[in-house]
């Protein structure tokens, strides 16, 4: 199986963006991630799949230190973004999260206008000097998220007034507004209908030209459709990591096979 999007969108995907080595995550006494090594490439969509509780979301949240917000959570091992240790003392998690954006399962727009939702990040990070700059960033981000045409005439209306699919695209616009280098998506389509899902998937493929995208999904078909690399997590281990085509047509590990074919394993 060949990945058609890869053939269509010819981008350099040989640069390693994230490099994780021997990552362990503990919630109190419980070990949720048991020694994961993985390289996430630039300009590539990497899908994390696996049953509930396998650690895929936990691992995703390590990549922008979202786990720092959980008191009992402890991360060990080495995670590097462009060669720099993101758990180094000198790293400011807020700056890190501007570089590594995140989109969540449930659309969670701020209770503000559509405009302010997108402008929030650039404002607090001081990315725009003038109102015109900010307008440009908002428009560009909404266009990126394929929401501009639907939202341009109602920018002052609350973001919460949009439909579910539009809200999720608003959250993606908000995430790309700070010009991140990596976009983490935790089940971005699980609350969306098939049309909105298709729009978000198309968007993910477009975003790949500029970002490295990591997506956690429960939909195997979605992982197969949008990603070039797939990682299968099981009980805190990274069981198998490879080209998406290979994982879905000829997985090497019996546990991967059982999971993706829907067998009791």
């Amino acid at each position, binding site marked *: 199986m060949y990945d058609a999007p890869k053939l269509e969108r010819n981008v350099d995907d040989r640069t390693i963006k994230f490099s994780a080595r021997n990552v362990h995550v503990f919630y109190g006494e419980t070990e949720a991630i048991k020694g994961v090594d993985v390289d996430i490439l630039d300009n590539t969509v990497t899908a994390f799949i696996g049953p509930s509780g396998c650690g895929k979301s936990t691992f995703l949240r390590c990549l922008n230190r979202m786990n720092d917000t959980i008191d009992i959570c402890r991360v060990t091992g080495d995670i590097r973004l462009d060669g720099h240790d993101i758990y180094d003392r000198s790293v400011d998690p807020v700056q890190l999260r501007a570089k590594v954006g995140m989109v969540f399962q449930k659309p969670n727009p701020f209770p503000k206008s559509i405009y302010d939702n997108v402008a929030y990040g650039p404002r607090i990070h001081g990315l725009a000097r003038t109102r015109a700059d900010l307008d440009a960033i908002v428009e560009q981000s909404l266009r990126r998220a394929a929401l501009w045409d639907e939202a341009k005439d109602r920018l002052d209306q609350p973001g919460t007034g949009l439909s579910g699919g539009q809200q999720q695209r608003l959250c993606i616009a908000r995430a790309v507004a700070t010009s991140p280098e990596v976009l983490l998506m935790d089940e971005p389509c699980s609350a969306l209908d098939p049309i909105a899902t298709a729009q978000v998937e198309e968007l993910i493929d477009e975003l790949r030209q500029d970002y490295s995208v990591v997506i956690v999904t429960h939909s195997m078909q979605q992982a197969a459709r949008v990603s070039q690399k797939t990682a299968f997590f099981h009980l805190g281990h990274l069981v198998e990591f490879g080209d998406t085509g290979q994982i879905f047509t000829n997985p090497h590990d019996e546990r991967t096979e059982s999971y993706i*074919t829907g067998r009791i394993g």
Partner: protein
Amino acid sequence: MSDHQHIVSSFDRDLETIQAHIMKMGGMVERAISDAARSLETRDDELAEEVRGRDKAIDALEEQINQEAARVLALRAPTARDLRLILTVIKISASLERIGDYAKNMAKRTSVLTRMSPVNGSPAALRRMAREVEEMLKDVLDAYIQRDQDLAREVMQRDQDVDQMYNAIFREFLTFMMEDPRNITACMHLHFIAKNTERMGDLVTAIAEQVVYLVSGEMPDEPRPKGDQTSVDPSIAPDIRA
């Protein structure tokens, strides 16, 4: 095959049904080869007629397998081994259907040949060749249902024997035709039968390749043994004017 069953048990039933149909189709094709070759040797026009009549059922089964495969693709979105199973049943059923056609063609020519004077010894040689193909088909179907890629690879090797039998028969027919031009019509028919049987061997080999793909996920990359030299070696087909 993974020992584990699908969580959705109707998925297992769908796959089992398709495979049962492949095995049924394989059995019908085996019988068609065997009966067509026997009718040729024993000059049994009635049996030949029967073989021709039964081909419709083989074609219908191929159609049914394709529909079932399409249904599984649409409803279950199969992956990995399940996906390979569906891809291979589509190809295997197509190969079986072609083999069935060749058997039917053999039976058709048999009906013509029974009205001509027999050519010495050749139907027995053709039947030996057909029996070899039939054995290969039986083994490849066993390899398929048991997911035995070693047996499938062994079947691929045996195609050489069929090709060599064809070479020998080819020479024999040339000799008969040179000896007596009155043999030409019968020998032409017999030659088509031999060539078609040789093609059946190739199709069985193609099925064996599908079995290897189903089990291993990779198409076999070793070069297929080629024993049919008649199209490349002029010494096998001597110039009649010489």
